């Protein structure tokens, strides 16, 4: 067991495979018993330099259920940040008021920088298009929970694989677990070659598809993401491909019984509502798992687990 006390979590590569598993094990304990006052002498600061209600509430719920007091802001309007205070000065000040900083900021690399300035640990809650490691950890937790293991799975990644930050992080993380990747996307939104190289470097296989129907029978996990119209310079092109990455209940015939569908949410139309009542839908539980994983991370980093 490594000691995670005092560690920062900025990028998915900051923790080792064993350290992820350690956090997932702790999260399981909190899923059984989420309300424990083990952080009642701690103050957690949540600094959201751009609004993200879903992520912020998940962190704040996690902290509150462990008895921590939560301070911070949900968007920088009206704070000294808006008056032009540097990130350096904001982080220095907040460090003196808190035991742990959770930060979301649209500037890429801002969380890494904050962790170098802060005298307390920093958890990255999203730095622009760069990293969002707690989303990745809750994805891992959901995969392990639904499959009983992280090893030797067939994972289908569907939708915008080019810009989808969660897809890149999850792919990197799953490279530790002998995964076979099935990549489904329009031509324009294929997984970047740098991420494909990580798969190859790990000695693993990936297959590429343009139609979601082709992976339904193989996948243990179908990880859906949204294809945004804005990503296409030509609107006609979007119209042509938009249905190839939409999942409907009738398509699920012939899928493996253990198959589960994940989605980082919010969804728009890429999973039709009739899928929600099938036994394969897992995306709402997945979001709930985020609270347990964030509880586990905070407890480990603050040295009470």
């Amino acid at each position, binding site marked *: 067991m490594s000691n995670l006390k005092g560690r920062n979590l900025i*990028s998915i590569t900051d923790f080792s495979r064993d350290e992820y598993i350690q956090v997932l094990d702790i999260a399981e304990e909190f899923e059984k018993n989420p309300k424990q006052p083990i952080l009642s002498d701690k103050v957690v600061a949540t600094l959201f330099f751009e609004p993200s209600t879903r992520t912020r509430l998940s962190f704040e719920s996690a902290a509150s259920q462990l008895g921590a007091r939560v301070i911070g802001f949900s968007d920088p309007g009206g704070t000294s940040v808006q008056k032009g205070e*540097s*990130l*350096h000065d904001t982080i220095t000040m907040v460090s003196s008021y808190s035991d742990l900083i959770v930060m979301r*900021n*649209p*500037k*890429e*690399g*801002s969380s*890494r*920088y904050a962790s170098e300035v802060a005298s307390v640990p920093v958890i990255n809650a999203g*730095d*622009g*298009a*760069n*990293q969002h490691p707690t989303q990745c950890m809750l994805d891992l937790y959901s995969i392990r929970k639904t499959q009983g293991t992280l090893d030797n799975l067939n994972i289908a990644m569907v939708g915008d694989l080019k810009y989808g930050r969660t897809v890149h992080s999850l792919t990197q993380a799953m490279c530790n677990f002998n995964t076979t990747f099935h990549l489904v996307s329009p031509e324009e939104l294929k997984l970047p070659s*740098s991420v494909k190289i990580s798969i190859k470097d790990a000695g693993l296989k990936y297959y590429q598809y343009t139609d979601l129907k082709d992976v339904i029978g193989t996948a243990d996990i179908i990880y859906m993401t949204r294809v945004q119209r804005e990503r296409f310079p030509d609107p006609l092109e979007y119209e042509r491909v938009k249905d190839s990455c939409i999942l409907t209940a009738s398509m699920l015939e012939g899928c493996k019984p253990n198959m589960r569908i994940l989605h980082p949410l919010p969804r728009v139309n890429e999973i039709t509502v009739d899928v929600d009542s099938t036994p394969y839908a897992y995306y709402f539980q997945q979001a709930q798992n985020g609270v347990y994983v964030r509880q586990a991370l905070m407890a480990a980093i603050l040295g009470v687990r």
Partner: protein
Amino acid sequence: MDNKKELVVPAIPNGTVIDHIPTAVVYRVISILGLDRYEDEVLIGNYLTSKKYGRKGIVKVKNKYFTAEQLSAIALLAPTATVIAIKDYEVVSKAAVQVPDHVDDLIRCVNPMCITNHEKIPTRFDVVDKDNLKLRCHYCEKYTEKDAIHFVEHKN
């Protein structure tokens, strides 16, 4: 052979000779080293014939020796360059420039959304490919490649 070259660009008694600079970057090397503001003799030769490289540039700077950081900058601009230190007309050291493992506070990150382009933070890069000059930003994790290298303003 060397004697003939000295006729083209005269020898200096003390200082540094930067040889084998690609012709296209000679004036950028001068600028990045601050030699355009240097108040002593600077001898510049460009498009000189080189056995090894066809055409090359050479810069001789009287009474000046460069720091490791400045040599890194030369390496990023002109990986083929040789740096020769001269004392009393004698060569006291001669070495090819080396692309360093890390490049700190020297070049800008190519990513407009990178925190280093928005706050006064020294940039930090890991050199991931020395042959093709590919650098990874320590902060935003994006790659800056050879053709996108721009030096930070205060180094100019």
